[in-house]
């Protein structure tokens, strides 16, 4: 009885393979037919462009990864998505409210550092005024010096072009400067 079963099994295996091949061929024809249709109807928009696009995208990726091209900090001729170019340093000019000088916007922060306290000269001026005020408000960071500006109208009136000497005028201790 086992012999016929073995025959059955090997013929089963053969039959199975045959039918699997049948199914596979059928699917291959489906895929080929669909690709043929796409080719003939021109539905594959990028058929010839694909290699071109691969090249372009590789180029773009190289440009982005290139460290010498750091975006906004690079040349003045970088164009943004609206087609505008911006200079690498903001060039609007206004008056510093501490010392009254005309400062370029892009240079304002470094100016403030020197003008208000981080710089050596400014700090020297501050120490000449009351040390109590200095101890109360000094935290070593320029941020803390911004709080006086909420009531800085008095300082505006007095800062009439004297460079960085504003601290001296408040030697009665009300001018807080680290």
């Amino acid at each position, binding site marked *: 009885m086992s012999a016929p079963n073995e025959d*059955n099994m090997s*013929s*089963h*295996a053969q*039959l*199975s*393979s*045959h*039918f*699997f*091949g049948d*199914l*596979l*061929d*059928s*699917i*291959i*024809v*489906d*895929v*080929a*037919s*669909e*690709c*043929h249709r796409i*080719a*003939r109807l*021109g539905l*594959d928009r990028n*058929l*010839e462009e*694909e290699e071109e696009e691969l090249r372009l995208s590789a180029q773009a990726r190289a440009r982005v990864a290139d460290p010498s091209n750091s975006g906004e900090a690079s040349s003045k001729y970088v164009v943004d998505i609206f087609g505008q170019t911006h200079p690498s340093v903001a060039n609007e000019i206004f008056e510093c409210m501490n010392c009254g000088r005309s400062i370029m916007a892009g240079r304002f922060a470094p100016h403030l550092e020197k003008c208000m306290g981080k710089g050596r000269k400014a700090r020297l001026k501050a120490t000449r005024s009351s040390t109590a005020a200095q101890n109360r408000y000094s935290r070593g960071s320029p941020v803390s010096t911004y709080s006086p500006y909420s009531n800085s109208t008095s300082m505006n009136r007095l800062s009439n072009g004297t460079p960085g000497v504003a601290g001296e005028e408040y030697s009665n201790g009300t001018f807080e400067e680290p």
Partner: protein
Amino acid sequence: MAKMTRSSINRPPTPDAEEDRDQEPTLQEIINIKLIESGEKERLKELLRERLIECGWRDEMKALCRAFTRKKGRNNVTVDDLVHVITPKGRASIPDSVKAELLQRIRSFLASAAL
């Protein structure tokens, strides 16, 4: 005498009987008919198609077709061309797990069809 009537017995068999004998279905054909009639063939084909999409096989075949089409020119391509392009690589790159699954299903069907 009776001899005259006997000659009619020896005439060749009618064509219908001869056709039947040549077209006796092979085991394969019988199974094929059973597969189709039960709907199992369609289910198996769908299962195979789904597995081949999942594993990226279909995308590979489409890429082969596109490459061939680019070379030959899109209006010069025939279905036959594409079938010949895909078949060797297609048959060879079926994942083993997919093949095993399908063969298992087919074998179960054969067993259940009590052949």
